[in-house]
């Protein structure tokens, strides 16, 4: 979760007032601050290559006849230079806190318009409306390709390699690891971002840019609980999706392979005794599998067994929750749904916010089968 204190959590669990502001940066210069954003939406997805995307319309009242509409490559909101920082202000009486939702790169201005009036016989811009689409800063790395295939200059540290590849700050959240030998970064579309994502996997997680604009690793392993989504008298949760899908829970895997001489090899793996036993109440759910790499009986046995394990091991499912807006939650947070019929702890995979007072989050929850 983003930085906060207990009082902030208290305020977020009750009634409060919220506002969203936008600051515009060109490089390290803040060229405009506290602009208003209308009809905005913002979505984070841990599974996406570029984890956050959003859009909105900046409405600007001109102070001295200036315009915010980008012209060519120039202009404060030009997608050729502008970075946006979205800030959410939460207030309740004297309590006021501002939370940065993150830094974003403007990628598109789908629509822009100036409003003019006559002053002293001259036409003057009185207001601008600029619609913007923006992506999180992974986009900077995605666009910047590798010019030729590269080997990491040193295999000692994944973090150092992320620093080298991105030129961006890195916050070390999990233990560093060495890079697998004979690693080559390919010069292909999105090659640099893929390289960083690969390093994230080597570190046991997902690499992403956090709200401070630094690369960080969200570990796959669900760790300690970071925060709570409350139901009940102090609750903020409006809806919890309770969906169970058994489509991909297979308890029998049938493998059909061929050896070097094209003789058929047949292998079956069956779930052990228990709730998923094909003789039990669940019944049989069969999956068929084949692969060109399997050439012996032993390989076939191990292949079907691993497919079965994967299927039975898919003990993770997503729970969608609608709740009051909470600017503190971040991708990868381990959240507890407290006061629910059964205890639920999961990792935050998706968040979407907009100018509505509600937000939707998706938690990935583990279940025991």
């Amino acid at each position, binding site marked *: 979760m983003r930085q906060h204190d207990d009082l902030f959590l208290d305020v977020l669990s009750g009634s409060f*007032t919220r*506002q969203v502001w936008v600051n515009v940066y060109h490089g390290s210069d803040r060229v405009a601050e506290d602009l208003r954003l209308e009809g905005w939406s913002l979505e984070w997805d841990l599974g996406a290559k570029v984890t956050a995307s959003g859009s909105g319309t900046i409405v600007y009242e001109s102070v*001295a*006849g200036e315009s915010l509409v980008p012209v060519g490559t120039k202009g404060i909101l030009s997608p050729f230079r502008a970075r946006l920082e979205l800030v959410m202000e939460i207030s309740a009486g004297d309590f006021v806190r501002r939370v940065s939702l993150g830094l974003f790169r403007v990628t598109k201005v789908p629509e822009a318009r100036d409003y003019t*009036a006559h*002053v002293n016989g001259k036409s003057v811009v*009185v207001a601008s409306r600029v619609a913007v689409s923006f992506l999180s800063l992974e986009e900077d790395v995605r666009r910047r390709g590798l010019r030729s295939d590269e080997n990491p200059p040193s295999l000692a540290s994944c973090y150092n390699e992320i620093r080298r590849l991105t030129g961006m700050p890195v916050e070390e959240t999990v233990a560093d690891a060495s890079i697998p030998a004979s690693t080559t970064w390919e010069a292909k579309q999105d090659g640099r971002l893929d390289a960083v994502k690969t390093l994230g996997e080597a570190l046991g997680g997902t690499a992403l840019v956090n709200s401070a604009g630094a690369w960080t690793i969200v570990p796959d392993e669900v760790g300690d609980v970071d925060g709570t989504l409350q139901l009940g008298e102090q609750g903020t949760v*409006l809806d919890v999706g309770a969906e169970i899908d058994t489509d991909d829970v297979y308890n029998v895997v049938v493998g059909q392979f061929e050896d070097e001489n094209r003789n058929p090899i047949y292998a079956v793996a069956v779930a052990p005794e228990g709730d998923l036993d094909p003789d039990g109440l669940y019944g049989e759910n069969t999956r068929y599998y084949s692969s060109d790499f399997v050439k012996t009986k032993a390989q076939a046995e191990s292949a079907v067994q691993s497919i079965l394990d994967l299927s039975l091991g898919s003990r993770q499912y997503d729970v969608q929750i609608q709740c*009051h807006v909470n600017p503190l939650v971040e991708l990868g947070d381990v959240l507890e749904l407290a006061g629910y019929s059964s205890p639920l702890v999961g990792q935050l995979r998706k968040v979407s916010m907009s100018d509505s*007072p509600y937000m939707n989050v998706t938690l990935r929850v583990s279940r025991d089968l």
Partner: protein
Amino acid sequence: MQITQYEKNPSGVSGYTSRVNRTANATVSISSFTAAGWPVDGTTSHAMTASGTGIARVGTVNTDRPAAAPGDRWSLWVRVMCPQAWTVGVRIVFYDTYGATTGTELKATAASASFAAGQVQTLRIDGTVAPAGTASVEWQITRTSGSAGDVYYDAVSFTKTDAAVPFRSGAFAVWDGTENASTQTYWIPTFTLTPRPANEPPYVEVALDDLPPVVDRVTVYRTAGGREHEMRGAINASVAGALSRIDWECPFNMAATYRAEMFDSDGVSLGFTPAASITVVSADSWMHNPLDPQGAVRVRLLEGTAETLERKVPVTFSRPIGRRVAVALAEPRQGLTGLAVNVYAPDVATADRVQAMLGDYTTTTVPVVCIRVGAREGAMRIPRPLFLGVASIVEKDVGVRKGLGITRQEMVGDESAPPVPGLIVPLLTRDDIDAYYATRDDIDAAYLRRIDLDRDYSLAGYANA
């Protein structure tokens, strides 16, 4: 206001050693002596070294004495650090001559204090009056008795003011010449507010003077009735020592307070100027488009105006699972919405001017009108000034058909921000000045400073006369 600070000897650092030794019992030097809270400013202070046990006294070099005239009031403020338990005093002394010779001492005013060993105290003299025949003035430090040794003093503020002015350093204290070897000018920005209640419409001339050289831009704020507005034309306005603007939006019959935030060339705030207040008295209400203040009309507000005042809060009452009462998820409260204003227009010309506020077939404007309520309708509880965004002004015939020309102008709108608040809508134009003066030399002869020309509003409208 500009205050001269004689913080250091104007002759320069080397001048200290040649300061006039009034009793042949002390010398002056620059010392790097340090103690708790000492020196006051910078890394060095002045040291007066008494060479014997009697009275030790140092003063200003003759040629550094400021000129003074009879009747001037002079004040002194100085921080003194005395390492030993002595009595130390300060004096202001007036002389008849000014310059190379010592001259005759006409009057001396003294103040002194007993010091504990190592104590730091402020010694001050407030507004002593120069006697007849005064031509120059100096300040002195004295030690009445004690052994040979040092007395330190620093942060000297010697000013021609009624009361002693504490020494101030920082960006607003500017050396008049070489650093540490000249006088300092301390700049205090000053507002001069001139109400013009008789003008149609009434306005305030706002002049901001004595801005320190470091100030590059200013933003002027007007506070009235508990609300603060940025003043039109003075938002991040570029200045060179002074600013002159007309405020057409100052509300009537209430104290309006002006102050300005100053910024240097990097856009860093240098703080606010002292504030100044004014009240513009007007019995009538006036209405204008902020982008065309000269198109203002005197209006009478009819019944139906501001009968309901509504300020909404955009809020969602949410009922999370398990809660018995709703949670209010709000956004900030909005200004007035759906405010009705009905205006009486006694003749067709007034009706035309009211209608022109929203533009016509050839000009485009922003449909925001500024309404300033006069004393006659002063009881109304609407914001002052009120900026009302109106989509249309409906004209209703009261007496036009009968040839009386009377109409009723009805509008309903939401409180809106004034458009392009940084834009100056000039009263005095270049054309006015060109029309009034035949040559450039005439202009130069008429005004001492550029800003004087800029604020000579007596010429306004001359080009069209």
